């Protein structure tokens, strides 16, 4: 593929608002997980909650979209000058020439969960102030963002559970390659709700501790929430050395089970291999893998097999979900931004909360941060229904070196 430039990017999660706080938390190995005190939830678990979401005000003309998920989207969009960058791109290319591709798993369903507590006792009807289209519907976050920026080009939500906001890069890449659009706003927004907390609990996949990816004692996920965005543009002729590029995307399906991964990680391996192939790279070209690493027994076992089969045991890797929690439909986006920070700042972030690596998993899993130049990285996102997506990102100067090294 022709590399695409992440001309602007930002992430907001429980470890920080925007890039500076996120980078500082990664450098300082500070996590955002805390005992759950969300809404009326009575589960003994840890969550990665973004502070201050409830206090946000929606713009008056978009008041119908008011719900936790869209507030979190707004909070994320207004960090790091991302808002201004999208408006500048809209002025440059035209509002119809920018595509919008956002991932979410549960959108604003919290609004419906709360409305069900306020049903009319006689008729069972939902309260009159409930707005399905602007809050609960899966498309709501893209609809909100579209109106927020006044974009008029193609817009869509990708909702394939925990691969959603990695998959948006795949859809945006294709539509940019058709020539239908000149730039794309991609990202993911998922917010805390009872459906996912009680749902993952019903599957026995929620840990009562802060999640411990790749640990011998791992016993489940910690759910988090996040908003992450990137502006994708065609790569201009001259880029700064530390500019971040999307180099490859790989997608596959497991065809195995709705809620557990293929035990040998077959689909995961196919996605990683396809991402490398699209980037024209070998496994040895990758300096760091941001693992899906949910801290469930089955994910980490299957993913480690897939990574080992393709890369061997030597590529440095970690899951940043010990810091952010599993932000579900936003995870691909958040981890793409963490990969971009790794490339820009030469930081391989350690996984948090992991005390004793599971010896069966046999990878170079980072328990301490490493500071060293990073040229190319791979990020994994897998989800329910057996949906897999891997992304390869690289620094602009890695492409120059490529040309120099390969006559």
């Amino acid at each position, binding site marked *: 593929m022709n590399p695409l430039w992440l001309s602007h990017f930002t992430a907001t999660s429980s470890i920080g608002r925007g890039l500076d706080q996120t980078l500082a938390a990664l450098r300082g190995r500070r996590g955002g997980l805390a005992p759950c005190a969300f809404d009326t939830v*009575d589960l003994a678990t840890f969550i990665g909650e973004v502070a201050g979401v409830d206090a946000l005000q929606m713009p008056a003309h978009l008041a119908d979209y008011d719900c936790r998920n869209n507030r979190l989207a707004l909070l994320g969009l207004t960090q790091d000058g991302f808002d201004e960058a999208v408006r500048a791109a809209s002025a440059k290319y035209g509002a*119809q020439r920018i595509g919008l591709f956002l991932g979410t*798993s549960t959108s604003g*369903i919290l609004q*419906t*969960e709360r409305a*069900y507590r306020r*049903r009319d006792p006689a008729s*069972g*009807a*939902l309260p009159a102030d*409930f707005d*399905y*289209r602007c809050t*609960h*519907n*899966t*498309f709501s976050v*893209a609809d909100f963002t*579209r109106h927020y920026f006044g974009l*008029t080009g*193609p*817009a*869509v*939500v*990708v*909702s*394939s*559970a925990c691969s959603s906001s990695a*998959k948006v890069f*795949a*859809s945006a*890449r*294709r*539509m940019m*390659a*058709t*020539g*239908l659009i000149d730039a794309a706003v991609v990202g993911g927004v998922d917010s805390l709700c*009872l*459906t996912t907390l*009680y*749902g993952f609990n*019903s*599957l*026995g996949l929620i840990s009562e501790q802060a999640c411990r990816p790749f640990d011998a004692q791992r016993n489940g996920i910690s759910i988090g929430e996040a908003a992450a965005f990137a502006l994708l543009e065609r790569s201009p002729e001259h880029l700064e050395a530390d500019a971040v590029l999307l180099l490859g995307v790989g997608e*596959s*399906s*497991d*065809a*195995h089970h*709705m*809620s557990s991964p293929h035990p040998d990680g077959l*689909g995961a391996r*196919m996605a990683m291999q396809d991402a490398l192939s699209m980037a024209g790279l070998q496994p040895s070209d990758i300096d760091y893998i941001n693992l899906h690493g949910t801290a469930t027994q089955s994910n980490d076992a299957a993913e480690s097999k897939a990574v080992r089969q393709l890369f061997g045991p030597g590529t440095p890797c970690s899951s940043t979900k010990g810091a952010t929690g599993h932000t579900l439909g936003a995870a691909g986006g958040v981890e793409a931004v963490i990969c971009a920070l790794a490339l820009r700042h030469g930081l391989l972030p350690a996984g948090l909360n992991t005390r004793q690596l599971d010896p069966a998993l046999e990878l170079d899993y980072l328990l301490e941060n490493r500071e060293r130049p990073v040229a190319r990285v791979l990020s994994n996102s897998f*989800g*329910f*229904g*057996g*949906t897999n997506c891997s992304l390869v990102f690289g620094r602009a100067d890695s492409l120059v070196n490529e040309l120099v090294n390969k006559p």
Partner: protein
Amino acid sequence: MTLSAYIEGIGLLGPGLSNWPSSRAVLGGQQPYQPGKTVLPAPALLPAAERRRCGAIVKLTLATGLEAVAAAGLAAASLPSVFSSSGGDGESCHIICEMLASSDRQISPTRFHNSVHNVAAGYWSIATGAMTPSSVLSAFDASFGAGLLEALSQVAVDDTRSILLACDTVYPEPLYSARPIPDAFGIALVLSPQRSARTLAQITVSLTDANADAGADRFDDDALEGLRTAIPAARGLPLLRAIALGQAQRAVLDYLDGTRLAVAIVPC
């Protein structure tokens, strides 16, 4: 800027429309439309446990998808896929919200995994063995158009066949009143970058500026027009009508507010 593909197979299921061959004359206006409730077949391709557990969106997706694949003479496992729907399994969503509002929040694990928006994509992959890429989309009332653009992009950029599965199902009350989709309705299209012996039509799609356009194509029949506007996937019906008529023509489909899709159709 246009996107083009060849349609090799069509699947159709909805109220009074039981498959593509028997619906052609209705859509083409040679036979009257007889409204009726959508009949969802049991998904024979799924293992018994999954068959028992799956909801309407899965049955609808499998039925329309398999009809299109059979018509195209292809193996479903070979096709990248695009699933597009306004929402997921409405019944699972309702039951979960009801339980979460009660004193007993112990929802069933099957109910939870059936509530994800990509439930039909997951079951499709399990049923057909497809390990191919799939995109799972929502764009509220614009879901058919969003799915069509994604599938055409796959065809054009990845130079591959692709199957579009645009399906919508019903919420029970009280969500029904907030999102009144009256019945299950689905369209599946197998799209190819090349013409083949199975090709039904070539389609070429562009975005229109709604301000410069008269609006999406409508049906003269009130019941069919009601279907088109009430169910997001049925916004694709004018495209199927144009194919049914078997003449070169242009169809305009609803997409996002302010933007529609213009489709040039050439029968093959």
